[in-house]
């Protein structure tokens, strides 16, 4: 059969079969027992030409309401942020995206150096000593942090704040079940981790205290106080953090975190219906040899030239097999590269400015919504998200907002029984004053 991805001609095939010493292709499949050999044709859609398929799939994509044509106030872990145009140009260089894991460093210096730079930027932002080459996403990084903590402390119970992303918490629970680790929720109070409850739950059985910063409700947790409680019982202090917020907030590393995880999606990665994004994993030097996933290190070649290699591989599954501390094999290299491009474009000035804008625009939105008569719940310090209460169910409100081409905030009632009719609103630097004012105007009727 002729296909643009299949270069074998009839003549090639004839010659190759001759070299192999068989008379037909079928002979090469005769080791498959007849009983399991697939007969006939797969019952799937017939092939389409490039143009016809593009047209069909463009129509399918058009059925979705995207955040370019509509104005989004939806965050809850995935955000509509500035994405410099050069980012896609860089990751479209196919030397990067068609490469495998850089196991042959002599022909992979580009990828290795780019990842080394990514590790540095994440370490800088989080205030940690070391960051790895990336993880699947924020949720699985969070779960891996619990496993590392359990291994390190030899304890089998973790405390997780009720104010972390419910989907990260759900992933953590699945991983924990596999490892027979007990997960206990620290209740939230007024939208932040309840410190009194945390105090009561602390004991020398606790492997880790795990919180989010800013937390799922947008609020800024008192990491300083939580750190004291965690370390007071020699538990690991794990913080999941939106790395973009760290342009404005004191980094968790400066507040005593042992492990900082999160997702680099806010650095202009496409929301892509939830993935692929880019988990990160940063630790103190003490935990360097326990980190899951790949690490790139600097070294020299035989001629003394600086170069980069995958290092400390003795931790990993392909060497340690069943003794490995994590089964992670791939990382999200291409997305780590993409987020590096954005972090580089932002630079030292831009990271501060973008974080400042988020803080300011969200504060303005809060003020406008209050002025429109809406009740802002919890009231504490927030970064770029906050919670409001509505008179009507959030799903109904969002359907009406959609008519004005506004993608409304997240319906907290979906995950929290006690938060019916509450909407989590995200205001990034992408939102204009005009858009914020329009949102306030549209939501007025639900006050």
């Amino acid at each position, binding site marked *: 059969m002729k296909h643009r991805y299949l270069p074998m001609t009839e003549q090639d095939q004839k010659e190759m079969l001759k070299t192999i010493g068989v008379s037909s292709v079928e002979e090469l499949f005769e080791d498959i027992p007849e009983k399991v050999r697939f007969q006939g044709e797969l019952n799937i859609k017939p092939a389409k030409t490039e143009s016809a398929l593009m047209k069909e799939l463009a129509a399918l994509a058009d059925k979705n309401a995207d955040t370019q044509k509509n104005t989004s106030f939806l965050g809850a872990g995935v955000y509509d942020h500035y994405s410099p145009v050069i980012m896609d140009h860089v990751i479209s260089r196919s030397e990067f995206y068609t490469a495998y894991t850089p196991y042959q460093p002599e022909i992979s*210096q580009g990828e290795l150096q780019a990842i080394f730079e990514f590790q540095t930027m994440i370490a800088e932002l989080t205030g940690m000593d070391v960051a790895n080459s990336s993880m*699947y996403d924020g949720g699985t990084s969070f779960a891996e942090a619990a496993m590392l903590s359990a291994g390190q402390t030899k304890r089998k119970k973790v405390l997780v704040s009720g104010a972390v992303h419910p989907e990260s918490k759900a992933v953590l629970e699945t991983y924990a079940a596999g490892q027979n680790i007990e997960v206990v929720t620290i209740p939230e109070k007024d939208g932040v981790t309840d410190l009194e409850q945390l105090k009561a739950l602390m004991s020398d059985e606790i492997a880790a205290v795990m919180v989010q910063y800013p937390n799922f409700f947008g609020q800024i947790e008192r990491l300083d106080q939580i750190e004291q409680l965690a370390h007071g019982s020699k538990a690991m202090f794990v913080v999941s953090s939106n790395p973009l917020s760290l342009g404005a907030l004191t980094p968790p590393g400066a507040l005593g975190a042992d492990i900082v995880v999160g997702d680099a999606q806010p650095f202009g990665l496409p929301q*892509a219906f939830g993935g692929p994004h880019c988990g990160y994993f940063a630790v103190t030097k003490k935990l360097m040899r326990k980190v899951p996933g790949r690490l790139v290190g600097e070294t020299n070649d035989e001629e003394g030239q600086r170069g980069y290699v995958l290092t400390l591989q003795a931790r990993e599954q392909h060497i340690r097999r069943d003794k490995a501390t994590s089964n992670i094999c791939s990382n999200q290299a291409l997305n780590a590269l993409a987020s590096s491009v954005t972090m580089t474009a932002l630079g030292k000035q831009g990271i501060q400015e973008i974080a400042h804008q988020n803080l300011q625009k969200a504060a303005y939105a809060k003020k406008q919504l209050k002025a429109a008569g809406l009740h802002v719940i919890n009231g504490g310090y927030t970064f770029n998200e906050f919670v409001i209460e509505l008179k009507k169910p959030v799903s109904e409100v969002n359907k009406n907002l959609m008519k004005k081409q506004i993608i409304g905030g997240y319906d907290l009632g979906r995950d929290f029984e006690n938060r019916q009719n509450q909407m989590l609103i995200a205001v990034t630097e992408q939102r204009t004053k005009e858009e914020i004012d329009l949102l306030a105007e549209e939501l007025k009727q639900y006050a």
Partner: protein
Amino acid sequence: MRSENQPLIFEMSREGRIGYSLPELDVPETNTDELLPEGFARKEAPELPEVSELDIMRHYTALSKRNHGVDSGFYPLGSCTMKYNPKVNEAVARFAGFAHIHPLQDESTVQGAMEMMYDLQEHLIEITGMDEVTLQPAAGAHGEWTGLMMIRAFHEANGDFNRTKVIVPDSAHGTNPASATVAGFETVTVKSNENGLVDLDDLKRVVDENTAALMLTNPNTLGLFEEDILEMASIIHNAGGKLYYDGANLNAVLAKARPGDMGFDVVHLNLHKTFTGPHGGGGPGSGPVGVKKDLIPYLPKPLLVKTEEGFTFDYNRPDSIGRVKPYYGNFGINVRAYTYIRTMGPDGLKAVSENAVINANYMMRRLAEYFDLPYDRHCKHEFVISGKRQKKLGVRTLDIAKRLLDFGFHPPTIYFPINVEECMMIEPTETESKETLDSFIEAMIQIAKEAEENPEIVQEAPHTTVISRLDETQAARKPVLRYMKKEPVEV
């Protein structure tokens, strides 16, 4: 002399230079002190580089030139299926309606995305011969762990709490035993026989009432089809265990043999291998999992279902193992795989496996004269040769791999599987032409001759790359894992 180093982006930084264009701050400002609790406003700015837009493009362009991808040249890395990554996939994944949609939007606003996911699931169900598929796992290893967690949940639901062991062949990928450990199992190894296949007697010996599952790659990592698969399935099933299919090597058997028909209960696929998701320098991948009927209740939630009103995510699944990933999987990679499957159709996919298998057998036969062939029989999409003969001449397989770099080729997978001495595992894929295969074969023949006549040239390779062999011991002993700005020396 090799080329100059590309400086780190941090070393290119100059104070005051910028590379961004942020929106205007068009709202009235509030004093930051009022917005953050005391002690929570960052004092020291993060040391990100200060460079212009052109600096950035030049930097990454220079780095890309120091990197080998499938688009740069042949990449016969065994078990990795480094086939061509079609460009139409990239275009489709970038459609605004796929790239710029939020996972928590109202379902009514993302029906197109859900339809794509559902149709991909339907296609994967037919291709694998399973009954249901989840797209949630992010990669192959993640899929393995997901599948094993489901097997564990299945046994526990039957009151079978003593099924603590997962059997893995000695030729298995390292992720198999690691995933078993993370899912809370112990790993038991089953030996391969002299034909490179699972030793049935050894399998019978290790199977018992504690067996939870057997994990198998078929064709296996030696590129050989496990001919006794049906007998193996009945040994495991009779003992009450489940059969797990590692889909890393599915490229060999598309439309030729389906895991579901071979007796497998759980399957994971690597969409970034068989179904052309680009490897991206290490990821992102996508690792959907397919199951037979009796395991459907344990699938991760939510499960995408089709109703009369349209597509919806079903969260009401009390027996589910829970979530394995936030949201619904690596959607962007799934879009690419779907585009590929729709590009190939049923005839195309069948031709993929046929051509991949012809290419591998052709290379194996032509190389057999110069290298040891541990298993002299038809292979599937990949095969192993051994550098034993060259080792006697003082040339190790690692040297051969490094020498291939001088010819512009990525080397095969080396020293894996671990049960073959001085192993080289070669997977050409179907997208390479006979001319490319021939030039690689010629290079290998030349290296074999060099090993006899001029071993130093192989031992000291590579000679043409931007950098020579790196000191990996130093990297591990004194790890330098990030750039540190050198403090100016005070005078």
